[in-house]
């Protein structure tokens, strides 16, 4: 049971790592990176280092993501209006060109 759980965790870790590298839009890359941090913190708990798990969950999944989002806002890689428009339209096709 625990072995299967570990295999699932490691596989999704690798998938998240590759996804962060190959996804085109920076916004999506950051979200996948935050998912990577959450999986990594669970793996730290399994490796018996809860100290690192707490830090990874707070820093990797929380603060780093917020700082990245703010930076993307500042350098206009997330457009506020385009994001609102895409929220109104369909979920799949709505994300037009807001991350050029």
């Amino acid at each position, binding site marked *: 049971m625990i072995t299967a759980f570990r295999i699932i965790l490691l596989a999704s870790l690798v998938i998240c790592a590759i996804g962060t590298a190959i996804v085109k839009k920076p916004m999506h890359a950051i979200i996948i990176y935050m998912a990577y941090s959450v999986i990594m913190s669970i793996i730290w708990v399994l490796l018996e280092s809860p100290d690192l798990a707490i830090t990874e969950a707070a820093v990797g999944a929380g*603060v780093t993501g917020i700082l990245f989002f703010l930076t993307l806002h500042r350098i206009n890689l997330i457009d506020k209006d385009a994001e609102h428009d895409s929220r109104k339209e369909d979920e799949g096709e709505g994300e037009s060109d807001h991350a050029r």
Partner: protein
Amino acid sequence: MRDKPMIDPEFSSIWTLWKNGQIDLTTPLRSPGHQPLQALKEVEKYRPRHSWEAYSQYVRKSTLLYKIAATILCCIFITLMLLTVANLPRYGDPNAPTINEVSERYIEEGTEETGAVNTVAGMILDYRAFDTLGESFVLFTAVCSVAVLMNLSGKRQHIKHTKELINYADDMIVRGVCRLLVPVILLFGIYILLNGHLSPGGGFSGGAVLGAGLIIYSMVWGEEKASRVFPAKLVRLVVFCSLAFYCLAKSYSFYTGANHLPFLIPEGAPGHILSGGLIMPLNVAVGFVVCFTMYSFYMFFRRGRL
């Protein structure tokens, strides 16, 4: 005189002609009101010295070469990393080179020597306290550099950030959930901070949780209110006091430890909250530094100042 000759349709047709070698630039061009000749002279400055076909072929070749080289380098790197992982000792292997007399000493006599039940806290704040001091100063230096880059001091202190950012407090779900969660997050951070010598946690983890709580607080209640609660002076004072306290306390501890002078700070009974000698105050100091570092990063990026 047009401002942007590049989008002139007449110009683009001339550009095509010139690219194909059908005209040369000395041909007098009749164009009332336009001056494509001037624009073409501008273009001539950036013309590649060889022909167009050779140039595009060169670009294609070098792009291909770049892709091949990048792929080969990536493959070599991945192979090296996977080989390293395959040759690592198994998890929990007693014959691994990392299990030596150093870690034995930490585990067997750590609680007795430092007074901390959590061996990790004893390690990073007693045996290796100097490393932790360096890490705290790294964070402090990072905040200083951001402040310098944001031009905090000097004449242009009040640069207006005209760009409108998303106001998170407008969203009802974010507002409601965060108002419920902020006290719990802050309380959990304080617990991790104060209990760092007894249970997993410590300065860095607790400070990170506290910093995240403060960031959520300033997201929901607004930066203005947050900067009134934690003004720049208070942040500076707290960070300075924490670092100075850390320096003084560890200097005292190193001095008395190295010279067999009497150590005045009682260690207390292991397992109690008031135990571990200097470890709990040092945890709190490191926690303050980490917490206000993250908070200042957020405020600098969001507002341009604290």
